[in-house]
């Protein structure tokens, strides 16, 4: 399985004249962009040091926001169709208007509001309205929407979802022979591959008929992004497998169950938004989120939970307390790491992770 390098791939794509929009985390109707032949390249943790962004943002702002701004300030060639700021949290909300109204970029800046709280019919109706408004916005800039194209985009999205669901299931039941690093590289490739290329990649994934060699230590991970590749590598070294995830950049963006194939695109897109797993950034019910996580832990027979928290991420940090408390009450070991998306792994974090595996191992052996 060959996964193309993110920046190489996007560079190549931009050279072919492909329209590419830079999209910030996390939830947005990608299918609408596809229907306008716009490729969505997601910006979560672009590489490079934070330098210029420090002139625009305080030290107490989360690294995802800062790194994204650093990337935007470079005015990269690969982004040629504008930036999209979905409404995810207070900081990204403000960054969107800061970039658009104060800093100013040469490309158009779009926003997309994601409703918050517990959902009901009023929310569903509103979500349909904002989908349509977004469509209108794109139509005024590009051309009238071709309904066939939107349907095709939804079908493609549906196929990708089905594959991802199957792969997740396989991961949980040890029917996938991928290291932590390989697995998350595969998951994250959807952030930049064209949907057809991504589907092609997913189709090549080998799902085993029989469970693989029994795993030494099984963990579930929760947070915004998967642990950095250095940490994943280290976990691989220690023989710790991440068998399930509750990540915003991971399973929280895949419907909880497999949906019927799309017939009416707007209905499909609306339904899809409302069957995504519970997520802090949408502000849903805490019990529902806890229940979802417990089920995943049970299904994957995870022995412990690793919370990988992005520093200063309010949505995650608020929910974190209750999730930890509940898991501890069930005697499930919990480890929390704090990341600023650095490219190395600190000695302290190594000690934490190793001590945590010693703890899990002790629990198994006694």
């Amino acid at each position, binding site marked *: 399985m060959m996964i193309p390098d993110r920046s190489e791939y996007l560079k190549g794509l931009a050279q072919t004249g492909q329209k590419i929009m830079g999209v910030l985390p996390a939830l947005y109707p990608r299918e609408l962009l596809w229907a306008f032949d716009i490729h969505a390249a997601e910006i979560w943790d672009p590489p490079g040091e934070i330098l210029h962004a420090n*002139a*625009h*943002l*305080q030290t*107490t*702002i989360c690294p995802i*926001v800062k790194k994204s701004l650093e990337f935007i300030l470079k005015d990269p060639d690969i982004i040629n169709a504008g930036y999209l700021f979905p*409404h995810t*949290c*207070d*900081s990204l*909300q*403000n*960054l*969107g*208007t*800061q970039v*658009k*109204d*104060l*800093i100013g970029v040469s490309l158009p800046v779009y*926003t997309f*509001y994601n*409703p*918050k*709280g*517990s959902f*009901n019919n*009023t*929310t569903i*109706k*509103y979500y349909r*309205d*904002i989908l349509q*408004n977004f469509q209108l916005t794109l139509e005024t800039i590009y051309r009238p929407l071709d309904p066939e194209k939107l349907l095709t985009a939804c079908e493609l999205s549906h196929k990708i979802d089905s594959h991802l669901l199957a792969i997740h299931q396989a991961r949980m039941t040890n029917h996938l022979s991928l290291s932590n690093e390989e697995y998350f590289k595969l998951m994250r490739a959807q952030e930049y591959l064209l949907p057809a290329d991504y589907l092609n990649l997913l189709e090549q994934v080998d799902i085993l008929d029989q469970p693989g060699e029994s795993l030494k230590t099984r963990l579930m991970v929760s947070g915004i992004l998967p642990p950095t590749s250095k940490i994943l590598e280290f976990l691989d070294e220690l023989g710790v497998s991440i068998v399930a995830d509750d990540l915003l950049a991971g399973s929280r963006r895949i419907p909880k169950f497999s949906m019927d194939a799309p017939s009416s695109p707007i209905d499909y897109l609306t339904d899809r938004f409302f069957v995504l797993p519970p997520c*802090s950034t949408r*502000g849903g*019910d*805490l*019990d529902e989120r806890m229940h979802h996580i417990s089920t995943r832990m049970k299904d994957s027979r995870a022995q412990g939970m690793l919370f990988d928290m992005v*520093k*200063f991420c*309010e*949505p995650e*940090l*608020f*929910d*974190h*307390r*209750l999730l*930890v*408390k509940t898991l501890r009450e069930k005697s499930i070991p919990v480890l929390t790491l704090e990341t600023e998306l650095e490219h190395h792994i600190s000695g302290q974090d190594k000690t934490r992770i190793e001590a945590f595996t010693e703890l899990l191992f002790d629990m198994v052996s006694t």
Partner: protein
Amino acid sequence: MSIRAELKYKIMKDYGAPAVMAFQDFKRRKPRPVPEAFGPPLETNKRLKEILSRHYFLSRYVPGVKKVAWVTSGAPVELLRAFDFYTIYPENHSALVGAKKQGADYCGIAERSGFSQDLCSYARIDLGHMLSGKTPAGKLPKPDLLFCSNNICQTVLYWYKAIAHELNIPLIHFDAPFVTTEQTEADINYMAQQLQDMIPILERVSGRVFYQNIFEDILKRSMETSKTWGAILDAMKAQPAPMTIFDAFGHLAPIVSLRGLPVAQDYYHILMEEVDARVSMGIGAISDERYRLIWDNIAIWYKVRFLATFFAERKMNFVTATYTNAWAETTGYLDVKDPWISMAKTYGQIILNNNLKHRLDLMKKMIKTYSVDGMVMHSTRSCKPYSVGQFDLRKAITADLDLPAVILDADIADERVWSEQQIHTRLEAFCETLEGSKFG
């Protein structure tokens, strides 16, 4: 609702509270001496203390008489008032804790229970209060209902969810889509519909029926009160300004937490009268006002006195603030003939739910109309919607208006976030620039 509890509440309201207030007043006979740099203090300060103490005092006798709701500062409280909820404003309470320099204690309680130190200090203080029952206000009644709106921040949604979970009580959330350019029809309809959807829930929790005419009266009162508040702030355009913004931070409490009630309406008439009188007599809040400043962001509650004195001694007066203005800015949209839509417009467009271009324009306008010479921005660790973007706002304002400005890194209520040395140096440098720019 027990008759005994109701009787007790009535007695306390009519006789108990005034007696306690009079006693406290007696205890406080000897007023703190006013530093020379300040003008005569506002008479209305006394009335403010009275109504706030009374509100907290009476809240002890409320259980069993009225249903209690905890409400966020930007929530459309008029709707709750139609069901006669006794409202408590945790933000207001957290500010009180902060002003008493006890913020770190309460934050500590929340932190030890697992809430991160990086979370909003208003939230941590409130959660610390909820987990421990501690409060400098005597005793606060447990809520029957939580009511929040993300028109001030998404944080309140997480914070109130945590309370709802802990106390197992209903939470009503009013989702206010952020205004990136202008409110769309879909946004307005969505908000208006949510308000109407709340009625059956509020009827169930309160055990009362919704009457449109009662609601309209409340709305009218709220509009009128906000207008008076706006007029009081406008009066600060006078030179010298009759109040400082630090006074206004205090006098803000009723418009935030008692909005829609007669007590708040009456209160601002009294304040208005005094402020008008001071303007006509040329009485200033500081004895010699040479420089006029604008404040951006929420107050640094644990340093209000320090800052007020620091600036007054340098003949500098804060005459306007984006913060105090927030409860006057959008009430013009309210309309009893079209309550739901007009509330959607009012509550959807408040400063923190509006884009930064709107904020920049508003600040520029305030700087011009209030004859402002310099700007102090409080960059607060706790509040992302207020603080993300401040660096560029400052750049735009200083460039366009050639206005000296300084940014202070601090916090609204966690006194641990304060670097004395650093702040002093910055403030002094700012004052030097300001003095140089005006007369240099």
